[in-house]
Every structure is written in structure tokens, then in C-alpha cells.
């Protein structure tokens, strides 16, 4: 439900990162988001058919506060010469990494 979704978002430590270059690697993401805190996990978004990176990922921090830092300082800045967007995510679930890019 919607309230449930809002509750999850309000305490989530996971960010959805979009508008990335298809060539951006996990390593670059670790470096940049690591500036905001300890990164627990990064799940790269993959093309449903080709299984290649397609411009988004999920970043999970250990702490909510580190995610807040990323929202404040990384959202709408550049990585690999592209302005990336970050958003709170209710939490990664297996299967969600496959998208259209």
C-alpha cells in the first residue's frame, strides 16, 4: 500500500541511481558514493535481454544517514560526465535489476 511504501522509503538505506552512462562501472560508484559513507552493496541495473548495464543501479548503505548525505551531495552532480539522479528506494528485491535502460 501507499503508506507502507512511504514508511519503507522513510527508513530506507537504499538509493536508486539513474541517468548513468551505460559504461559507468561499479568501481566508480563505490568511489563516489563511498565519500558519503560505508557502501554495503551495489546492484547494477542490467538490460533484460542483453544482460549488460543499462544506466541505473541500486546502492545500499549501512546507515540511513549516509544515504541522506548521498541525496544531499551527489544527487544531480556528475559521474562519468553525466548528471546522475538519486532517489530513495524501498529496498532492492531480486529481479528489479533488470530493466530497459
Amino acid at each position, binding site marked *: 500500500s501507499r503508506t507502507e511504501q512511504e514508511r519503507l522509503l522513510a527508513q530506507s538505506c537504499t538509493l536508486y541511481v539513474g541517468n548513468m552512462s551505460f559504461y559507468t562501472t561499479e568501481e566508480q560508484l563505490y568511489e563516489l558514493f563511498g565519500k*558519503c559513507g560505508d557502501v554495503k552493496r551495489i546492484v547494477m541495473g542490467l538490460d533484460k535481454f542483453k544482460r549488460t548495464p543499462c544506466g541505473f543501479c541500486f546502492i545500499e548503505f549501512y546507515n540511513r544517514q549516509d544515504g541522506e548525505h548521498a541525496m544531499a551531495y551527489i544527487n544531480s552532480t556528475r559521474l562519468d560526465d553525466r548528471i546522475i539522479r538519486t532517489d530513495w528506494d524501498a529496498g532492492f528485491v531480486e529481479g528489479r535489476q533488470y530493466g530497459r535502460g
Partner: protein
Amino acid sequence: KKRRTNETVEIEDRLESLILRVGEKSTSSLESNLEGLASVLEADLTTYKNKILKILVDCAVSLPDKCTIYTTLIGLLNTKNYNFGGECVELLIKSMKDSLKTVKWEQARFALRFIADLVNCHVISAGSLLQLMDNFVDAALEEGVPQVRRDWFAYAVLSCLPWVGRELYEKKESELDRMLGSLEGYIKRRNKTHHNALRVFRSDTPHPQEEYLDCLWQQIKRLRSDMWVEKHIVRPYLAFDSVLCEALQHNLPQMVPQPHHPSTIYPLPQVVFRMFDYTDCPEGPSSTIILPGQHSIERYLIEEQLRHILKTYHKERKECAAQLLSYPLKNKIPLEYMIVEVMFGEIFRLPNPEFIEIAYGSILIELCKLQPSTMPQVLAQATELLFERIDTMSVTCFDRFISWFSYHLSNFQFRWSWEDWEEHTKTDPEMPKPKFIKEVLLKCLRLAYHQRIVDVVPESFAAFAPEKPEAHFKFALDPNEPGAEINGCNLAFKLVNAIKQKISQEEIQAILSDIPEGEQDRELNTLKVTVFTQTLLHLASKSFSHSFAAIAKFHPTFKTLADTEEAQICMLRSMYELWRKHHQMMVVLVDKLLKTQIVECSAVANWLFSKEMVGEFTKVYTWEILHLTIRKMNKHVNKLNKEANDARKMVEDVESESEDSDNDQSRKTMEKPTEEQVEKLEEKLEAAQADQKNLFLIIFQRFIMILSEHLVRCDTDGVNFKNPWYHWTIGRLQQIFLLHHEQVEKYSTTLETLLFTQDLDPNILDVFQQFLALRM
């Protein structure tokens, strides 16, 4: 309790909003707004007195940039309602006491300044303010308490004087002189061992890097010789002088600062970072735009206001940049220069910046975007100046400079006039300048990719361009390939096949135990660890995720193999041999190996100081690894500490509450730990603290050993010991003390008796003494 009616709430909210907003941009003058607001509030004083009092006192301590606006307002109210003025004063004193009790030092300082400014508005008598300040000065003169405590009281008084100095001078000159005399005595006698530890630059040329109290004292002295006249503070009360001077003044209640308690944590001393003077700033359209000198009180006041803006808006970087650039006096000062100096002063603040580093970096990016005609140039000029002076920069600031600059470049297509730095390609790569360039490019590499960085720098930069970060698997799997003669290739070959066939861990471990004939136990173990680590990480080398997954999957085998510290070091060494061209990979792998408890913190420390790592010793990533290792240990201890404390408290709470039985239900349902459980937690904590202490002992002992060896060797060879290696190594030692001072502090006595003894070389001992002086 009576319920507040909707109407009351509405009116109170309206009053709050009116008070909060006064002084914001408006069509009418500040004076008429203040006058209007005072009349509105006067009318509501009978009904809403308490609410109004609370709002005003909150504004006084939390909006220090609007100090004079609110003092004027209280001044006007005091003329209309003397009792209300008295209650305001009482509440302010109470608020300051509370701030002191709860160690909110900045709030307490703002409260004192606000109280001082009320003298200007004829709310408080000059004599009683001096009395209060004298009590503060007495606290500064008190013997037998930490200097950091005394410093705070001296600083709090000095920082009020730009506001109230003139008034005190006119009304109580001799008392003011006497107070300043006492303060001067204290400032001259203070111990300043900490000064060198906190400096961004070791050198005072071109700009002195002054200790903060010394600097403020000089600024106040200058102000005093200018007859306490300053032109910076906006003083709305001057317009109301004729009204205000009619008012009766209040005397402050007697207030003596609470005595020192050993558990109190006082603010650390600081050093004032300076990188510009007026000659660095281009001449403005009129000669009125000039950077105030280092001892001009304006410099202090403007910097404090800019820092306040930063503090208020740091979570909203766009708004922060906008607020900084619309600083009210922007037409009188070279604002971009002052902002940049303040920003770098904050980034370089030792021991630690107030906010995470990327906060400053992202605000600087917004400043460049918002003011593209000037900001990028000023920032480039600043970078050049910092680079020029990098030889005397503290190692910790050197790291932060690299980190900021590479991050900044990554947001601006890595555009930089790299050619200007070409001459440094020919100098000793261990010197700070070439090292800076090399490390910046390595950091840029992490935010981009190899070809991008190679393409960005001129061809002459070949020596600086980072190596391609690829894995180097030392075992040849094909007997015809070079490297096939290395011992262990057979085993590696077997392992690769086994892992690819997804056989069980037991079988893998069986393969590893398949002892080749004639091997000694010890060598055998080394071989097993090396082959397994290299092979597994090689097969998983595609990405971080692959590597992490491999470590997770083969955790049992890793644990079995890494049963001694020697084996753990061997594992780290094997990882290094595979990934030595990929610093970031090594950093995340060590992090993972620590988190999964495959290797221990002490093994990492011993590995970094080992012979095999000598070539890596002055590289930045080596210290990134050591600091993350120490932080991991600190975090672990802190967590256990909290758990043990919470549990202990719960047990004690339960005991004290057992008498009054009908306590709220929620507490009862909470799991109460047994005494036995608490003891177990405390034992765990003690064990962790022992590990932590041991880790610091290992690190400091290693430092002492290599530094002493170096000093002795240089002495025998008759050469100057101050070579680049020494510079980096002593700097890194200092960095451990600074960045982890809160943790190291717990073991200072042990360190003093076991390692930093009086017979140690003074150059090494000095670093320890500077650390001790931080909280002296």
C-alpha cells in the same frame, strides 16, 4: 492542563513567524519593521508573554547572525515594559547556563554575545556585564584545569568585544582595561605545543598560520587601538538611541561558571587558515573593495558569518551557495576570495572537518555553477596557490587536497592546465608536487576510467599517468607460458578446474592439503594460502561484486587457511601481488577481508609495515587502508561499549525501579539482561579494547622503529635526515594521532610509558607531545 484553543495556536504561530522573519528583505526599512513589531508584541505581552519570551531567547542563540536585530527589539520592548525586559535577561542567563551545562559551547558563546549587545540597547548595565565577564575571565585564569577549558572562557569574552567594546570603553574604561590586562596575561602564558599539530602549512610565509586565540587577541588589540570603532556590524539600535537611552537598565544576576568536571569535553584549539591577502585579489571597480588584513576585526567578523551560513545551509548545497554569494556586504569585500578561503579552511580543519568532505566539494561546485564568471577562476587561483605551497602542507591536508581536487575535476570534464605542471615530471617523484599530481590522477582514475585519464593529460605526463588497473596472476596455467616454473602452478591449475566445476569446499580444501613431497610445513602453508588467494581472486577479478561473492562463497576455506597472523599477512601479500596496479580494489578487498573477519586488524597493520610494502609506503592508498583498518577497530569497540553500557544501565534501572511497581508497561516487556549477560558483554568489550590498544601499540612501535633506524642511519652517514621519506613518514605518524585522537587518548599513559619514552629522538617525541597538548 488546559487545552490551547485553535485561536491561541494561530496567534502564537503568527507571532513566531513575525519574530523569525524580522530583518528579512522587505519594502520598508528595518527600523520601521522593528518599531512595528515592537508595538504588535507589546499589545500581546499580557496574553502571550511566555511564548514571546521563549521565541526571543531561541532566536538569540540560534540566529546569531541577527543578534543586533533581536537585541534592538528587546531594547524597544524594554522601554515599553520594564518587567518584560527583566524576564528576558533572566531567561537569557538561564539559557546560557543550560548551554554550558549541556556543553553546547557555541550556543553559550552566542548567548553571552547577545547579553553583551543588550548593553548597547540599554537593557543591561555596563557594570553588571563587566561583572559577568570578569567571572568568565576568572575561569580563564583558573589553575589546575585543562587549558582547553580556560581557552573557551577567554575566547567567549574576546569574541563579544567587537559588539560591546566601544560601550564598555566609554562607560567603564578602567575596568575594561583591567580585564584586558588579565586576558593578555593569560594569552601570553598559554602553552602552544598543539599549534604545530593543527597547522595546514608548516611555514608562515607568505601568510602566518596563527593560533586562533593569538589571532583574535591581535584583532582585538587592533580594534582597541582604533578606539573600538568598527564599521562592519549592522547596529539597528543606533537609530533608536533617543528612545532607548530613556530606559531603565537591568543588572545581571550573579553567574559563576560551573566548575570543571573531568568528563567534560571542551572545543579543541584551532589554527586560522590563511591563503590570501589583498595582493592576491584583483583590483575591483572601486578602491573600496579590499580584503581586510589578517588582524583586522572585519576579517574575523566576515569569516565567522560565512562559516555560520555554511553551518546553517550545508545540507542544501544550492541554497548554501546562493546564501554565501548573496552575503550582505558583498560589494565591500572580494567575496569570492573570502568564501574560498573559508571553504578551504574548513576542508583542511584539523583534526577533522565539521562535515563530510564531499559536502564542501559539492558546495564549491554549486558556487562555480552559480557564479561562472568569477568563481571558477578564483578556485583555480586558489588551487595554484595551494599547489605552490604544498611542500610545507600537512600530510592530512595533502590527502584532502587530492581528494577534493580530483572530485572537482570529475565534475568539470577533468579540464585543467596540466601543461603548467610539466616541469615537475622531471623532479624526484617522492617530492610533494610530483606526488600530488600522480595521486590526483590516480584518484581521477577511480572516478573515470583508464583511457579517459590517459587522454586528458599531455603526452609529456607519461611518468604520471596511472598504470592500467589490471590483475596480475602470477601462476601460469599453461605449462608453455612464462611463469610455469613457479612453485604452485600445478596446484593453481587444479584449483581453477575445481572451482570452475563448482565442487564442494571440502574437496577444495582436500586439494589444498594434497601435500607435495619434500615441502616444509611452513612453506607449504604459505604456498597453499598464496595459490588459493591468487587463484580465487583472479577468477573473480571481473568486478568488485564478483570478488565479494567469491570471498563470501569461500569464506570457510579462507577462515581455515588464515588461522595464524602469518597466514593472514601471506593472504594480504598474495592479494597485493595480484592487484598492486589497482589501488581501489586493494582498499575494498582489505575492507571486505576485515568485515568478514578473515584477517585481523593487526595483520593488516603488520603487512603494511612489512618489507614487501616498502615501495608502497609513501603512496596514499596505503594510508587509506591503514585508516580504514583503525576505523573498523574503533567502530567495533564503540559498538560493544554502547551495548555494554546500555545493558548495565537497564539492569541498574530495573533495580532502582523495583520499588514503585506500576511503572509503564513498555519497560516491563523489554528484555532485561541478566547480570551474567551484562558481564559477558563487558568481557567482550574488554577484549576488544585490548585488541584496539594492541593495534595502536603495533602501529606506533613500527613507526618508532623505522623512524629511529632512519635517523641513526642518516647520522652515521652524515646526511640530512629530512628527506622526502622522512617527511611523509613523520607526517603519517602525526596523522594517526590526529585522526584517531579520541581513541588514542584512552591509551596515552600506556603509550607514554611503553613507547614514547624520554630517551626517544626528540623529533619523534615531539609528535606525541603535540598530540597530548590537544586536550591539555
